[in-house]
């Protein structure tokens, strides 16, 4: 099965430099990583370490300064903005850290937006299942402004799942959720990996959330500093703690 030997997402030599007020900020300083199909990866690291930047570059939302991103067999840097969008539309789902929804549209319309933009017919049964999973069956006709932060985040997850993408990127999907809802969302993500063979890459600060993943990558100052298969919440916490201490010492 050659298909399975090819990772769902692969990044090589990824750098991203921002120029804010003339001074360069190296948000990513050379990242190599691949994410196999049917796996659930958590990316952790201190604030400002480049997690969101990595996720956006890998999802084709941002163009890296250098390096390349492969989604399956496609290299993204060669694609035009339109081709890139079309690829994202079919194969990638994204849940942003904040400000995820379009205020003008209802919950349901927000969920169906990518399909609508693609001109695709929604798979009703799947959508119903997704909506049930995120527990928003009663709120479909509401505007995002009437939802709580956690509910908005769940709508965003439902939207990312709606087109059954190969890879789903989530930027702190449970950051604003209570423990129970967070557990539900994480179980949902775990299930789509296990039951549907999809690939999930999730940024989180929560070791408990990370323990749902198959693998945890830790980022610091734009580099991968740890890459652990199924480490368990305790080990993750420990690693993060050492990271914090060593950073404190180096300063």
């Amino acid at each position: 099965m050659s298909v399975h030997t090819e990772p769902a997402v692969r990044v090589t030599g990824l750098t991203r430099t921002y120029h804010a007020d003339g001074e360069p900020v190296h948000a990513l300083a050379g990242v190599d990583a691949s994410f196999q199909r049917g796996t659930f990866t958590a990316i952790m690291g201190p604030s400002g370490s480049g997690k969101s930047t990595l996720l956006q570059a890998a999802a084709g939302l941002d163009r890296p300064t250098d390096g390349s991103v492969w989604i399956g067999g496609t290299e993204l840097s060669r694609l035009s903005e339109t081709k890139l969008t079309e690829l994202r539309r079919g194969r990638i789902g994204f849940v942003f850290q904040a400000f995820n929804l379009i205020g003008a549209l209802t919950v349901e319309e927000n969920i169906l937006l990518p399909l609508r933009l693609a001109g695709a017919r929604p798979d009703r049964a799947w959508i119903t299942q997704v909506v049930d999973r995120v527990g928003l069956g009663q709120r479909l006709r509401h505007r995002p402004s009437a939802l709580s932060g956690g509910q908005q985040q769940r709508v965003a997850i439902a939207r990312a799942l709606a087109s059954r993408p190969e890879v789903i990127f989530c930027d702190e999907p449970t950051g604003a959720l209570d423990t129970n809802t967070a557990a539900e969302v994480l179980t949902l993500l775990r299930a789509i990996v296990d039951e549907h063979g999809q690939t999930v890459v999730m940024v989180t600060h929560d070791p408990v959330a990370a323990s749902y993943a198959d693998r945890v990558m830790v980022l610091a100052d734009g580099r991968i500093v740890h890459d652990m298969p199924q480490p368990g919440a305790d080990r993750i916490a420990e690693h993060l703690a050492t990271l914090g201490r060593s950073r404190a010492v180096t300063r």
Partner: protein
Amino acid sequence: MISLATRMLRHRPGSSVATLLALALGALILTAMGVLVESGLRYHPAPVRYAAADLVVARPDTTFTSREFDGEIYRSTVALPEGGTVPAGLAGRIRGIEGVATVAVDENIAVHTGAGTPLSGRGWASAVLTPYELVDGRAPANDDDVVLSTDPVPGGLDSGVAPGGAASGGVSTGEAGRARVGEQVRLVVGGVLRTYRISGLARGNGNAAAVFFSDAHAAALAPHRGAVSAVGVIAAPGTDLGRLADQVGQVAGDTAVLRRADSGLAERSADGAAAGLLIQVGASFGGYVILLIVFVVAATIGLSVRHRRRDLALVRAVAATPGQVRRMIMAESALVSVFASAIGVPAGLAAAGWLTGELTSRGFVPEGFPMAPGVIAAAGATGVILVSAVLAGLLAARRISGIKPAEALGEAAIEPVSAGRVRWISGLVALTAAGSSAFAAVAAGGQTALGAALGMLYLFVLAVALLAPWINAAAARLLAPLLRAAFGTSGYLAAANLRANARGAASVLTSLVLAVGFGGSVWFLQNNLERQAVAQSRSGLIATRALVTGAGLSDSVVAEVRAVPGVRAATPVRNTSVVASVMGDGEVIGARAVDPAGIDATLDLGVTSGSLADLRDGTAAVSRTQASTFGWDLGEKVALRLGDGTPADVRVVAIYEHGLGFGDVVLPRSAVIGHTATNLDDQILISAPASADVALREIAAAHPGAALVDTGTVTGGLAKDLALSAWLNRLLIAVMVGYTVVAAANTMVMAALARRRELAVLRLTGVTRRQVKRMINAEQAGLLGVAVLLGGTIAALTLSSVVRALTGNLVPYVPPLGVATVLGGTAVLALATTILPIARLLRVPPVEHIGVRE
């Protein structure tokens, strides 16, 4: 996409209302102007004077042909200001053609009643062309006979037998001005008061009361020599008119052979002149307004798109292609423009109705002129609005669709400060173009001057619009210490905002500069033109008295005046027009024809080179502005056409300053004899001591309708004439200035309301409401200062270069009250449109706004 666009619009009613307002007002103005143009273009004069003629041979217009760069032949046709003529001998040749039953020549002879009412004077032979039929008496047989039409004559007829004498005015004949056969009637014909016997009365459908002379007498009185206004042909029954027209055409040479339906074109009527005016006014102002609308619409739509960057970036991130986002924005703009047209077009039609009423009551357009319903105008305005909105949408969308979707995730909606190099370079190009057009010679004439001013103004505003991000950033840096000193912490915050928002505030700055620049220049242009025209006329008139009349003065009057003891000089003046071609387009230029003898003692045209003493047949003097517009030099031979279309190649023998007061071309009177509609003088300028007044007044009394006036009164009359056309200019300029003001107000309210989140954050971090208000005041003060400075500079540059080109004065006249109005108006505008909306935002607790996405 459309339904998504609709949803997005409904979610942000504020900015769509602003765009709607800008577009609807644009549609209103365009529709109103369009109705004028459409009415003018669709006006087709109904046959009246030649209603009974099958064919009319005439020359209503003149055509200029030129070869364009690509070798195409370009034709420009202009209606002849004095009416064209055809050779008198043509009638004889047409008479020989088979199928011709009747041929009659027609001439219009200037006839006035003793009370000054103009009558239509014709030869009896031409009566069949209308037709007029005798109802009483018989046709005029000798020079003393006239046939009067049965139409009532306003003011009555002067029988001449009343005991009061000539000077005491006319006594009406019969009841209600109706004449009886055999009575005597006194008429001013060819500028001379004569007594005729009414030989008959005729009834017909003319558009004015007519008086018919015997054909021999008519020929003697006719204004043209060897030529006539028109030749009418009545065909024998059963003749193929198409063939006949061809045959007549072969004989007629280059004159027009008009069929019955078109014969109205051969008549000179007030309606025809009004149609020309409507086209000119509507088209020129419509043209200026289109540019303005494009500016305003681009600014408003640009701003509304900018305020939704976050939403649009999110749509991009959620998998919309750049093309889809572009289409969505364009669909949105199209949608708003359709609504705007639905509001603006009916309002524009109503405005056109009002305008027609005003134009009619002020005498620009005759009563009952057929105004078009405006169907084409409405469609045209809708089209223009739609296209400019969609293009503006495309422009704004191009900027936004280039956003990387990742920007949607950024917490702050602050955009990159650096604007593109292309923008910088285009801005510099626009600035250079504006600067050089300010130094280039500017075209002359009321309307054209406005055009030149507006062209320059638009270039300057375009430059400001393009360079606004840099201007704002530089201003913020320069103003920071000032604002901090004046407003403390609030000033510090204001400077920071101005700097961070340099690009976002570009639209606001542009619309403020546009309003100040417009208000400060075109509005005052009219003042300058009027003042200058009156001043030139006053300083240029050396003559102390003038004999003026509406009925025309015959040759003999000049001789009479010159014979009065004490009269040093008398200069007869004819107001006429000539036609010349500028870049292939025929253009009518106001001209005066004068007798150069003794002109030094009556007129001072401000000759700068050459001399009026050289003025004789085959020469002309031209005003400085006209010479520079057409590129004529002293001694150059230029191809003019007289008002009746006769070619006149003249050598320029003098160039003078006072073009606004006296017209742009001065010809020797001998050159236009037989080439004007009446062939009479309009006034005689007299240089004489007061002792001559009695004798002069006697001459005036002998010519009903004429009056001896002080030359001060002549200039007063000029001012009144100018004020009339100024009313129209003022109205249209006011509409344009008003539109820029509304647009500026619009963008500022939009910009203010878009700041609710930012202000909420400030208040939550502990900035008090008072401090926020002071911060906004400080920002407004900064922005306003920059706008007034730039707008004022642009206005001053524009105004002074146009005024200099027109009048030679470098310093334009600006009424102090006008300056106060412009400055005060802008300040009030800026405060009312920002401070009030902000105050409203501040009344709501900040937490309610914090969740609102920008």
